[in-house]
């Protein structure tokens, strides 16, 4: 009876490497760190991130740019990494779900916290892409209306939640990001005040 321990049947094939199959070095910034990964010229960015980059947070839901599960930020813009040839990101800035919080120098991004609070995810498979699209939106528009959130996330399919909690979470995260930047502004201005004062003293 076949089973572990028996000799597997094996067809020996000599691998023939065409130029398109030889991995090439690819230098870019991945989650705020300069990296050099190796990618075949025809490889999709999605596969390079997941396989060479060991970043499996970015998901493949359809492979043709319809579901948005593979969304990453390229130079701050949300793009489907399943539609992108890896080589095209040479020298550019790529952020995946694993680097989202670090974009703010935080351990948890306000979007992640808001998705937790409002149960913005169920099965979780769409969440990485959804969060990246939402992050891009809030970067450009920290106070989006409900209609603007819907528009920005319309390329990200979710089959579990019915979207309402996602929309609520994004709006709340926007409010927190605004508060955060207000704090920073305030901190800066009080620093400036302090500096001005000390300069005045001296």
């Amino acid at each position, binding site marked *: 009876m076949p*089973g572990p321990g028996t000799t597997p049947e094996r*067809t020996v094939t000599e691998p023939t490497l065409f130029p398109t199959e030889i991995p090439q070095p690819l230098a870019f910034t991945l989650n705020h760190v300069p990296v050099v990964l190796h990618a075949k010229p025809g490889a999709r960015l999605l596969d390079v991130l*997941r396989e060479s980059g060991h970043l499996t947070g970015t998901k493949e839901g359809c492979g043709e740019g319809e579901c948005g599960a593979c969304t990453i930020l390229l130079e701050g813009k949300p793009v489907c990494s399943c539609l992108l040839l890896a080589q095209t990101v040479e020298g550019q800035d790529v952020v995946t779900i694993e680097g989202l*919080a670090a974009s703010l120098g935080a351990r948890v991004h306000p979007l992640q916290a808001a*998705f937790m609070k409002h149960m913005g995810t*169920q099965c979780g*498979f769409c969440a990485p892409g959804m969060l990246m699209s939402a992050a891009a939106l809030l970067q450009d528009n920290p106070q989006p209306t409900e209609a603007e959130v819907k528009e920005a996330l319309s390329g990200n*399919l979710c089959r579990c939640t*019915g*979207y309402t909690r996602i929309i609520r979470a994004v709006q709340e995260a926007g409010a927190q990001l605004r508060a955060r930047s207000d704090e920073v502004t305030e901190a800066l201005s009080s620093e400036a005040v302090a500096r001005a004062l000390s300069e005045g003293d001296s």
Partner: protein
Amino acid sequence: MKPEADGPLATPGAARPAGEPRGVAPTYRVVGTSGPRIDGPQKLDGRACYVDDLSFPGMLHAAAATSEEPHALLLDVDVEAARKSPGVLCVLTAEDVPGQNQVGVSRKDQPLMARDKVRWVGDRLAILAAESAAEARAAARKVKGRYQRLPGVFDVETALDPETAKLHDGGNLVSKGVVRKGDAEAALLEADVVISNRYQVDWQEHAYLETQGCVAVPDDSGAITIHGSMQCPFYVQTAVADVLGIPLSRVQVVQAVTGGGFGGKEDYPSELAACAALLAWRTCRPVKMVFNREEDFRLSTKREKMVVHHTLGAKKDGTITAVKAKILVDAGAYAGLSVVVAERGNSSAVGPYRVPNVQVDTLTAYTCNPFGGAFRGFGHPQVAVAHEAQVDELARQLGRDPADLRLQNLVEPGDQLASGEVLSPPVEARLCFTTALERVGYEDAKRRHAAFNAANPTKRRGLGLATIAYGGMLHACGQSLEGAGALVQVHRDGSVSFAMGHTELGQGAHTVVAHVLAEALGIPLDAIHRVPTDTRLVPDCGPTVASRTTAMSGHAVLDAARQLREVMVPVAAEVLECWPEKVEFVHGRVRDTAPGGKELAFRELAQACFLRKVHLAASGWYAPPRKLYDPATGQGQAYSHYAYATHVAEVEVDLATGQTQVLKMTCVHDVGKAIYRDGVLGQIEGGVVQGMGYALMERLVVKEGRILTANFTDYLIPTTLDIPEMDIVLVEESPEAKGEAVVRLEGAPEQVRGPYGAKGIGEPSLIPVAPAIRNAVSNAIGFPVRLVPCTPERVMDILVENKVDPYAA
């Protein structure tokens, strides 16, 4: 203060489980609350490992070659070219299966790989493993079948005709279910009004965002481990053992984080796992098999297409006297779960109405169409479209208001359902219905829509009602699968881990069960860790289906918690120097409730138990009482309890395009008790949107058994831009129920339910949606729609046929 031991823990696993004694106001600390999911953080930061994220040293990738013909004799399978294809290590056909070449979950009619005959384009000719997924797929395309074509069977309505080609030796009839109550024929002859119509409800694709997948890993002990995206590890275990011809004890199945199921990962993962296991067994290497989206569309199961001929008889005053229905269920090429889906359709065809004479015949037929399977609602959504459309048609015929007519016929305590079972109070059907009318402001809404319609030549608004009684837990015919276990361990530092046999698909099962466990042990949720579902930890719990996980696994952990408290209380009494009866577990502390009593942390008690060598692990088990049911008449106790729901849809139809926009859904659900409130609301919101897709846009185009819409470009599921406003109301029994929009109701459950009186919500959330929207669209355009989904094309056909031209002068 009342010791918790008098609460639900006093009666786990009993015939009257869960519910509080009538009149007692229970105080829960965790149950009924909202809060983060326990699996939330890893799902939101990318750590969660779905099956395609798993990797093992030496792992190969598998693909399957499937039939090019929908129905043919299979003369030969040529795998030579595939064997020589780059990267290929192993190619297997039906001849290579060491055990049974069978994967049918309900019947042994489905080969893992075709031999002699193919019956649909998903039949496998060969499976193969290669160094990469791309190489495996490329090689699969080189497998060639030699066929002798047979006439295809593509129409469920003619599949059972004697002259139709036969897919299986026994003919094309898979099964026949009946309900016989009173004398429907005679009652229809005596009826003042008879409404008879044909409804066609098409296939639906699950479209879970994560496609099907698994990894099979053989080990050096002669065992094999399957990691996979799945609902039912015990089905997978059985299938792999059967196909490999090894005992169940040598097959371990571990559920990976699963990206949605909705029924689509009930039976199909067994097939995938059997393929991967076979290849792993032969190559002695781990084998991964993950579908791409197109493969998933083409090969996995679908919600069955059904054709329902529904006849309703009533008196002039609106009293429904008879229902006669003939339901045709398109199973696809194999029985799969369609035969079980048909049972639920059969038992649900009348709806929550008092109907003395019922005759239902449910015929499930083999065809060469897409493979039918389980999908949220499990046969109920299709028949609900028919029964709710029929009530609207009756109202129209009688010149009555559809709400008023429903109220006249809705079941009340003491009434019988079609199964003949007498409903014991509380029966929340009427409460759900009237609450929905109040929330929507029914009369006002009707006036508003009429005013809008009068002012808009090209747009029509309409309102549709749908109300259902969803049978809780498994149908009586499937009760051999009704048992569930759980393993709970209290560690010496007071942290608690649990494993259950049901799976987390996204629905929140693990969080709900953690709530039950936290309540039972009086510990905070963050003290609890859940272990992935693993067949080596918990005995066979049956499938994770039928909205029953909260009830089944919830009772199982309650049983385990009761056992743990039994051994911990004496130690606590010893340490606290008090009577055991006075010991209470609450907020992570254990205390003597007598005046001036001492207390200690749960953690300290765990440590004290450890030092005294108390066994701090418990295996819980729950099996509900048997249901008595006669399949020959469809009479008896079909289900353990009923969950009622009413949805009201308000829509706007563009007469120029046939496009429907759902403006608002008002959804009232009897949930017994919302254990994890956000989870319940999330299930309803998701169910409504999925149901809306089913009602309006998700049309699977099938031509001669081939799916032409096998991707998200052609098969449209709702996006953020499609969702309606939702008003959701939970009807609960507990007077303690907190939160917005909760109807408070006195009374206690008489039915077998989940812990704390909970009823399932996964499926009831979807079932009324398509019926309500279909009724609203019909109401808006003034003509009945009898095909679901009500796509713009179908609505336009009706408008054109009836010469509705919004641009006519």
